[in-house]
């Protein structure tokens, strides 16, 4: 059973859904307040969605200096799995744990609706239970979701296969290369704009997001999901 720390910042508002989604997937999930500096032996750290610090200055710009972020950075640098969802993605970019940045949606409007995304990479701790190229329906809810990076960074992350999720068709927010989610070069830190925690059961309109949380049960993602076994003493069916 993976220990999943859901970090709560002042202004987080997807923390309860994220905790519930991780627990529904079988994880031992718990909250960590942003002032805490102890992740309590977390296997996985999730930065949930919301509007930390009111999005003042820039989305995620102030949260990234919260006391907990030193521990999150140390966890990430040690190879630990970190997932940022929406505001969490913005915080990870601001913290320099992920490349690029997220800017105001191209058409300025706050977008809250289901979108289609394609799973581009399955060798991350959060996507290995998907099939490469699989298309999902997951909701977005953001005003600052336009992924940008300088041309050389974009070329680099494309070449290295760091685009994890891509919008199908035109990006609703004007994101460069229709990017909906990226990972770092070590592939243990992932950020996505859509909200997988809002699509984990039929009663929520579908369960396309559930495998993000089921994937967390694997400690070590590999290039080939079929090789992931005996994780945490349990043999995982893959």
């Amino acid at each position, binding site marked *: 059973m993976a220990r999943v720390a859901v970090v709560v910042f002042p202004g987080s508002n997807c923390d309860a859904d994220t905790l519930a989604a991780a627990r529904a997937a079988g994880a031992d999930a718990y909250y960590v307040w942003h002032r805490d500096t102890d992740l309590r032996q977390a296997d996985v750290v999730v930065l949930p969605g919301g509007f930390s610090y009111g999005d003042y200055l820039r989305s995620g710009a102030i949260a990234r200096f919260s006391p907990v972020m030193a521990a999150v950075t140390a966890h990430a640098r040690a190879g630990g799995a970190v997932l940022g969802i929406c505001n969490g993605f913005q915080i990870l970019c601001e913290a320099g744990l992920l490349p690029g940045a997220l800017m105001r949606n191209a058409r*300025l409007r706050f977008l809250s609706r289901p979108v289609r995304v394609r799973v581009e990479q399955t060798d991350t701790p959060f996507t290995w239970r998907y099939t490469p190229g699989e298309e999902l329906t997951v909701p977005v809810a953001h005003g600052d979701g336009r992924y940008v990076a300088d041309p050389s960074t974009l070329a680099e992350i494309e070449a290295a296969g760091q685009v994890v999720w891509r919008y199908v068709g035109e990006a609703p927010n004007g994101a460069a290369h229709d990017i909906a989610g990226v990972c770092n070069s070590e592939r243990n830190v992932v950020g996505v704009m859509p909200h997988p925690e809002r699509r984990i059961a039929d009663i929520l309109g579908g369960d396309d997001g559930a495998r993000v949380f089921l994937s967390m049960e694997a400690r070590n993602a590999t290039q080939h999901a079929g090789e992931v076994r005996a994780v945490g003493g349990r043999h995982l069916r893959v």
Partner: protein
Amino acid sequence: MSAFAVEVRVMPRASLLDPQGQAVAHALEALGFSEVGEVRVGKHLVLRVEAASRDEAAARARVMCERLLANPVTEDYAVHVEAA
């Protein structure tokens, strides 16, 4: 130590789409200001800073910009210092 008024201008990088600037440009055009070409929207921050000299105040403000006030991926900044 003396007090300095540090003004920081943070602008979205010129190569990036600035939808706020575009929206303002369209609104100005609708109001009949046809002479307006491009509009870009940024931020203006005013800080009161204690420092030994104007140069020191400017140097500290640039460090603040690098660490927090501007995002190096998307924004450029300029620092202007006056005696407070």
